[in-house]
């Protein structure tokens, strides 16, 4: 059981961004992707989620054996268990957090079944407490006027409420101060489970001190070029990315 990405190629317009990406995340593991700005990390997250701007030109992704690209709509993929915590979450004016998450939870219930409001709020408040989010947060419009840190916490709150099988966290650490980073990491760690796989995208190794990955991958120009254990992240932090690129060039 895994999230398995094979030879993934994807374009935006005429331009190829993902150029044959391979990656397998077994259930129960946390993998990290590190890479320079512009290497295609966010593109990978959005392509998997089914963003309409991207075109998949080759390759296959399976979610526990299910062909992801056979699910045309992003919401089908989400209900199949894929969650993306976005680098830049969208604002949805006028839609409260409580109503938004509720609609998302409701969408996962069998047709005709109505969400139990009391149970829903109990769970929501419990998860909010874990993420140290104040109660009055629920009546604010989704991401509207949020600070960077609030947006990221809100993403993790949604993740916690929706119980995904595979999670992709795109630069969840950016915009967080050290206290917020600890809280968010605790929230993510609380979701570590043999039943769940996670992909953490970051370009600082700092996050990986708190969310310790099983495997670290390096992405360069739309491909995974190097994989290793946690020490790879430390090496990248100390020496930058240039040596990786050189190594890749040499191999080629």
């Amino acid at each position: 059981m895994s999230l398995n990405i094979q030879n993934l190629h994807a374009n935006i317009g005429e331009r190829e961004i993902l150029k044959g990406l391979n990656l397998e995340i077994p259930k129960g593991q946390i993998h990290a992707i590190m890479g320079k700005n512009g290497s295609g990390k966010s593109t990978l997250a959005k392509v998997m989620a089914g963003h309409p701007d991207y075109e998949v030109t080759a390759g296959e992704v399976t979610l526990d054996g299910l062909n992801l690209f056979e699910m045309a709509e992003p919401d089908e993929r989400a209900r199949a268990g894929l969650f993306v915590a976005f680098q830049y979450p969208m604002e949805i004016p006028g839609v409260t957090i409580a109503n938004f998450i509720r609609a998302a939870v409701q969408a996962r219930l069998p047709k005709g079944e109505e969400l139990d409001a009391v149970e829903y709020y109990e769970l929501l408040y419990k998860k909010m407490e874990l993420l140290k989010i104040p109660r009055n947060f629920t009546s604010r419009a989704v991401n509207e006027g949020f600070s960077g840190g609030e947006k990221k916490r809100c993403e993790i709150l949604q993740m916690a409420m929706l119980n995904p099988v595979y999670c992709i966290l795109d630069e969840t650490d950016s915009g967080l101060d050290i206290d917020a980073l600890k809280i968010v990491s605790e929230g993510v760690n609380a979701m570590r489970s043999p039943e769940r796989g996670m992909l953490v995208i970051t370009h600082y190794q700092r996050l990986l001190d708190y969310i310790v990955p099983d495997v670290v991958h390096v992405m360069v120009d739309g491909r995974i070029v190097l994989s290793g254990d946690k020490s790879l992240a430390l090496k990248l932090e100390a020496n930058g990315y240039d040596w990786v690129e050189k190594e890749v060039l040499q191999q080629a």
Partner: protein
Amino acid sequence: METKPDLNIDRSIGDFHYDVNYEFDAGIGLSERTIDYIADVKKDPDWIRDFRKDALRKFESMPMPTHWASHDLDNIIFQNIRYYLSQGTQPKRSWDDVPEDVKRTFERLGIPEQERKFLAGVEAQFDSEAAYSNIKAAVGDQGVIFVGSTEGLQKHPEIFRKWFGKVIPTGDNKFSALNSAVFSGGSFIYIPPGVKVKHPLQAYFRINAENFGQFERTLIIADEGSEVMYMEGCTAPKFETSTLHSAVVELVALKGAKIQYITVQNWSANVFNLVTKRGLAHEEAEIKWIDCNIGSRLTMKYPGVIMKGRKARGEVISIALAGDGQHQDTGAKMVHAADDTTSNIVSKSISLGSGRSTYRGLVQIGRHLKGCKNNTECDALLINTESRTDTYPAITVRGKENACQHEASVSKISAEQIFYMQQRGISEGAAMSLAVNGFVNDLVQQFPMEYSVELKRLIDLEMEGSVG
């Protein structure tokens, strides 16, 4: 993209038609004979018969306002319309007396249980005549009059005649003239001085005959220091040919009185909905129109308040949703005619597909006045590139000691927003509904609870059809 049937909504609501045996039928077309037929059937007093005939002459002499309004108006064939139909039943006094098929209609409209309780106090119009009318004992005890317009003019002429046609003169516009000629149905309400009516008074009405225009006429008078809330809502069945709905609603708030008039309308896509609504606010009185227009082929409606007494207040809160092929031409009219009067207009429109929304606002503050304030806010939401929105604010402020504030915005629901919501597992249609409901959320909260639920449902219904 594909639409998934996630919304679980019965598209057929409002799309039904029960056979009704009409006892009285004015036939097709409009002439003095039509007027006489209506006046005879309704046993109108002479002054009303004369009023109708005078109105018919005005209607016939007035041009279509197509120099500023939609040319679609030219497609109304007045000679093909049926101006009066009635089952001939007198207004009923108890629920048991209501014909089964009318009850079924209410049932089918899905009026929530909560609201059914109110039915004991409802004035419901079934086609031309009030098929059911019963005033709650409590309301009656307070001296409140809540009857159909016909009963009002017959039984309470002393109050009725004093105000009828005074806020909206017959010749105000072509359609107020038409209504004045052929009106039937609608409510007459009088609230005695100091009485604060706790329960909202409600009217449900709908069109139920092909090619049959509905011309109800409502007059509400709130005497000094009284308060009342009136709610109307309707769901029209869908017909092949166009139907015309042209109502006139007049409100009079005497010194210190408060009137709130709430409308939630969902017309089928072939209806011309051309309505004139205006209130007259005396000293320190308050008139608030809360108006939601969904559906119809063309709606033209600009609720207004004339603030003729010092410190009077006028407010129009409106939501318009123009679906594919529909045109919502709505707005507000605020006439400041005394010092220290304040008005507030908040208008939100949503245009879908080839739908079109137009906002027309008129604010007038006279040169000799001081201390007057107006705030106008109009926001438009476009669901796709075909949609179109126009705003025509006409603000005439004379005199230096008055203040006007005008804000307008046009926004779109972006593909990024929809994608974000879909990533959470919400279908495209439901995401669209959420975003639209979010856009109008602050206004919806001003509607009474049961109406805000209904409204959300109507928006869901419209949005469901908009994707795919």
